[in-house]
């Protein structure tokens, strides 16, 4: 039996969805994109181009929910399937779009560079429990208008895992071209999606020009989208969990309607990054237990609607890799996974998604590993009848080399890597009495050093470079930063 957790019963889910649909019918959504609005108008929505506002109908919502696929797959740079977003399958992805990276040498957060990003991409390649890359932080050494596509460019050159990414500009063409180069053609990219793009509505009930353009572009190119609605309970959303869920549902449904109206059948993920608002510090704690409850709640709603789900739980608001970092990330990872979120974002992230720490990513990889063990649950493995095993125990006085032990040891016990200290005190002291941060730091160095170069065809690599250099020239840069890290 797969262990699961539920916060909402079907009756409450139905009420929340009904309420959200009612809001879309009555209060409607603002969409700063005339093309999208016209398209919705063509499909029966009531639109007002002058105020860039629309009220959705039950018919358009139902049609969208009908064509949105209940599952889809992601494929790595080499074209191998890595993700099956269906049922209760769970995959972890590093948190994304931090503005700072934690400097391993100084322990301070600072603006990241190309070299930092390459180290990150190489590291992710070696982390067993992290299935995808995210464009985790924003290299500050390229023109601002390129920062979204440049992250993707580096990811595709230095790691083979698929990429969860996003765009903050309307320049989707570079992002599309880079992916098509890797796959070989638009058709092949559609056949084997390489990335998933996060697109965020603005609370309450609004899609900006860039976000709605991203939805339009992704749908037209059949690039999967995860909707990241971000209600902030008590500030930019009702203070209650249920109220925040109603808002999240309405915003996410409106996104689904846009994508499915543009291109019925385009793969979408019911995601989000809600948070409570901590009025004491004017912050948006992602590690708050109520934040995690909203996350689990909307995952249940997404599942009720038969859609793949994503959540932003496995991370922390701590400023350092400390006890708070561990407890918040561990709790979030376990809750998100028990709720059955297909894609769980967050590992590596500190400080309200402002900072990514490579050391934390190594530690979080262990949290993900333990979470996967948790999800396997308790299952009988040759435990009935038990008498022969206990007879062996009584005869040999121990079971340490029993066939039963050897056969099931690694299925039953997930032994973590070196960052999780399970030595006794003397052995720990003999090994230098190191802290988790110190071990994680050596692991980062080891994994970056041992990273294998990508097997992506050299010709395609050259095409990626050529495309990015062309974009850099248009953005006013003489050359791209060195990539010899």
């Amino acid at each position: 039996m797969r262990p699961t957790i539920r916060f909402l019963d079907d009756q409450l889910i139905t009420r929340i969805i009904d309420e959200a649909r009612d809001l879309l019918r009555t209060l409607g959504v603002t969409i700063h994109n005339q093309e999208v609005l016209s398209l919705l108008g063509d499909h029966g929505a009531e639109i007002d181009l002058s105020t860039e506002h629309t009220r959705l109908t039950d018919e358009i919502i139902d049609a969208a929910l009908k064509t949105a696929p209940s599952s889809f797959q992601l494929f790595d740079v080499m074209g191998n399937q890595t993700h099956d977003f269906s049922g209760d399958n769970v995959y972890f992805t590093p948190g994304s779009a931090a503005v700072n990276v934690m400097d391993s040498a100084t322990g301070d957060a600072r603006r990241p560079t190309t070299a930092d990003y390459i180290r990150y991409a190489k590291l992710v390649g070696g982390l067993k429990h992290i299935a995808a890359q995210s464009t985790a932080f924003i290299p500050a050494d390229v023109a601002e208008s390129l920062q979204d596509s440049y992250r993707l460019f580096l990811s595709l050159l230095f790691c083979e895992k698929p990429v969860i990414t996003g765009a903050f500009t309307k320049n989707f063409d570079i992002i599309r071209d880079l992916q098509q180069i890797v796959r070989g053609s638009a058709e092949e990219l559609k056949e084997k999606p390489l990335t998933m793009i996060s697109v965020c509505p603005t609370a309450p009930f609004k899609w900006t020009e860039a976000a709605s353009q991203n939805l339009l572009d992704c749908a037209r190119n059949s690039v999967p989208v995860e909707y990241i609605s971000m209600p902030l309970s008590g500030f930019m959303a009702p203070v209650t969990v249920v109220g925040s869920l109603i808002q999240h549902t309405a915003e996410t449904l409106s996104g689904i309607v846009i994508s499915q109206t543009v291109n019925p059948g385009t793969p979408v993920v019911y995601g989000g990054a809600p948070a409570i608002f901590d009025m004491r510090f004017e912050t948006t704690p992602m590690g708050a237990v109520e934040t995690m409850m909203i996350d689990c709640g909307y995952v249940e709603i997404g599942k009720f609607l038969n859609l793949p789900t994503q959540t932003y739980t496995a991370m922390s608001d701590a400023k350092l890799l400390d006890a708070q970092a561990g407890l918040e990330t561990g709790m979030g990872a376990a809750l998100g996974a028990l709720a059955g979120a297909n894609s769980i974002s967050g590992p590596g992230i500190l400080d309200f998604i402002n900072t990514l720490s490579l050391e934390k990513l190594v530690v979080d990889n262990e949290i993900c590993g333990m979470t996967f063990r948790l999800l396997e649950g308790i299952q009988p493995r040759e435990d009935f009848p038990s008498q022969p095993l206990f007879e062996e125990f009584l005869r040999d006085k121990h079971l340490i080399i029993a066939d039963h032990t050897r056969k099931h040891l690694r299925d039953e016990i997930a032994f973590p890597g070196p960052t999780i200290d399970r030595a006794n005190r003397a052995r720990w002291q003999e090994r230098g009495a190191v802290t988790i941060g110190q071990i994680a730091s050596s692991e980062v160095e080891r994994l970056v050093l041992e990273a294998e170069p990508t097997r992506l065809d050299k010709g395609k690599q050259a095409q990626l470079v050529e495309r990015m250099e062309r974009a850099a020239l248009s953005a006013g840069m003489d050359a791209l930063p060195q990539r010899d890290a």
Partner: protein
Amino acid sequence: MDILKDIAASLMAGDDKKIVEEVNQAIEMKMPTTEILDDGLIAGMNVVGEKFRKDEMYIPEVLLSARAMAAAVEVLKPLLIAEDVPSRGKVVLGSIQGDLHDIGKNLVAIMLEGAGFEVVDLGIDVPAEKFIETALEEDASVVGVSSLLTTTMPKMKDVVDLVEERGLSGKIKVLVGGAPLTEEFAQSIGADGYAYDAANAVEKVRTLVGRA
């Protein structure tokens, strides 16, 4: 020689059947006994030890390798005796008087046997005299004393004192261990060694018998 590599590989894989065939084959090839032992078995066991230290192999696999080692040594035994190659050593083990815990001590016994040592296990609640008498009777050079309780720890000193009283210092070495113990405590009672876990006990016994 390939056969020695095969022996080392079987040892690492813990295959006690294949290793016996290979050792017999090496004997038929008139390979020197010490070469089979040193370059086949012990070379393989050294890799096992290294992997165990790096957390690449776990206790069950180490013990399986040890079982394969024991099976191979059994085949070599008549030749080792004929050639007068000394045994790996004998250890007397027990939980100290007043202490009824034995899980840790049992794990030490399993690991020592696995490493090729002979073990005389006296069980729990063992008085100091019993350790020494048994060591003399069995011609054991190491006495391993275990304690789980802070209340029974002081009794361990009796064993060390008795060794000294009887003029056996250097001949019988006392190794202590148990959850509440520390290196400092072991030194304070004058023990010859302290082991912090069962795998460490094997290393310490090897050092004490001069076979490290």
